[in-house]
């Protein structure tokens, strides 16, 4: 039914008189109209629910907007960079930023390594049961974080949790994983790696299709060891995949939020609070302007890190 204007328009072009320029320009107009019509529904919703909020959030970060201004968002005062200053001078936010940095610096390499190792093993090492392993490794990715949190808190129970019970078998007295300042963040890193390495595995599996098997065999005949072949053949071939995994994993981990939110509420003593979680807390306190500033700071860091990774990986 939406097609009717166009189907009607087409036959109106006089057959013989359809000199190329006129016919083409009329068709181009029809094409442009169709393009706009097909784009419109998405664009309207996109402008209302994504683009405008992005802009609003930026404006908000320069105002003193609070929860009490929710019905009159235009009746707020501009305060310049005050919210950004507040964020930087807040010791909890600084702690949150440091925790996020540790989480990213530990979590990203571990996730990528685990994903690549699993992908290599599945790509070359085994021919049977491949899909069983693949599904099994991917299961944590599709699981609700709330369900994951329930199960992991249960597993990490200090007294009768499975982890400490198993450690007990080999004579190790496991700590109170989530309750101890020294192990809480590490526990969350472990959980995040468990939950996310499946994604990078799947992407690496696709990327490994680009590796030239004959080159591998030739190198092996010339006496190149496994590690040498991996280093000089496999790794360069999957460079674009590596960049993609690195960038997307980093973007995700820089927004580290759900794990501390459901597992530890940021505790003990802010040991696991993350930048995103503290931003959310500011929203909860009703400090919308400050929360907006913090969200934009995270965005800024994400943009910078992404840019840097593109530069470094493109270099050679």
């Amino acid at each position: 039914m939406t097609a009717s204007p166009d189907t009607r328009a087409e036959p109106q072009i006089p057959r013989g008189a359809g000199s190329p320029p006129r016919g083409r320009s009329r068709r181009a107009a029809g094409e442009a109209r169709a393009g706009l019509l097909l784009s419109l529904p998405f664009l309207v919703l996109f402008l209302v629910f994504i683009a405008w909020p992005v802009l609003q959030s930026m404006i908000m970060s320069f105002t003193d907007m609070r929860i009490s201004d929710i019905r009159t968002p235009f009746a707020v005062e501009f305060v310049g960079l005050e919210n950004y200053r507040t964020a930087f001078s807040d010791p909890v936010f600084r702690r949150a930023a440091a925790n996020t940095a540790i989480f990213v610096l530990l979590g990203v390499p571990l996730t990528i390594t685990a994903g690549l190792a699993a992908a290599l093993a599945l790509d070359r090492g085994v021919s049977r049961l491949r899909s069983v392993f693949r599904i099994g490794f991917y299961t944590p990715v599709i699981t609700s974080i709330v369900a994951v949190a329930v199960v992991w808190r249960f597993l990490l129970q200090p007294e009768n949790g499975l982890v400490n019970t198993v450690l007990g078998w080999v004579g190790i007295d496991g700590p109170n994983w989530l309750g101890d300042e020294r192990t809480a963040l590490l526990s969350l890193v472990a959980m995040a790696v468990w939950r996310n390495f499946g994604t990078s595995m799947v992407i690496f599996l696709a990327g490994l299709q680009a590796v030239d098997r004959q080159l591998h065999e030739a190198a092996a005949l010339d006496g190149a060891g496994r590690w040498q072949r991996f280093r000089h053949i496999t790794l360069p071939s999957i460079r674009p995949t590596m960049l993609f995994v690195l960038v997307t994993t980093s973007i995700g981990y820089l927004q580290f939020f759900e794990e501390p939110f459901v597992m530890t509420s940021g505790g003990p003593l802010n040991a696991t609070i993350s930048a995103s979680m503290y931003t959310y807390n500011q929203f909860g306190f009703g400090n919308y302007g400050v929360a907006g500033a913090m969200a934009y700071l995270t965005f800024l860091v994400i943009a910078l890190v992404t840019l840097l990774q593109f530069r470094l990986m493109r270099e050679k």
Partner: protein
Amino acid sequence: MIERRRPVITYLVLTAFLLLVITPFIWMVLGSLKSQGELLQVPPTWLPEQPTLDNFQRLFERPFGRYFWNSTVVAVAVTVGNLVFSSMFGYALAHLSFPGKKILFALVLACLMIPGLVTFIPQYVLVVNMGIAGTLPALILPFLVQPFSVFLMRQFFLGLPRELLEAGRIDGVGEIAIFFRIYLPLAGPAFATLGILTFLGSWNNFLWPLVVASSERTYTLPVALALISTGQNQTDYGLLLAGATLIVLPILVVFLFFQRHFIQGIATTGIK
């Protein structure tokens, strides 16, 4: 070939790794069938000594049927919306030329990098001012359009030959009809991938419904479970594990059913 010298070791390592990865799920399902007394036992038991469905019974004394329904309605609506709007826009971006196309695509791509929290507060203010906070539409509307979906559909349509479009034009098929009658019927595989991805994302979505669904009538499963697990039932592990099982099992079944499309889809968007 060369690599297969010691497959036994690879299989052993992979199997050990697999067990490590899926132990939490096994522990969850087994635990949901144990009594509270048995759950607190030191050392813990593996198999339930006296398997019981009591935890699930207690779960359904709460309106968990309702939550399940809410989760389903929201996930289905969000999925359908993404398939419809993103395929239309994605096709236009891939094969039609119209004013502003490049800028629009750049704008959508830029939004892939923007953290969710940036839009969170304005979106919240928006649904409050629209008067729909605490209703199911508030859980659906902001997710009907997602930059990632457009990206995926555009990549897919780019992969379909342009000759189809030219042939349609020669046959006098209207521009919009070309999309609906020629390209859309070929989009099955992309729909499968995008559909399952969006469904999963919506089913597991947590923060937005937690903030916006302010009454029991509109809770989704993750919200309900999160609220139980932080309240007075914090240590009622039987109840919580039963709730976790209830969230995970349906999605696992859906995933097993569609996993081929799913994994291929992620892989292809990752490569391009």
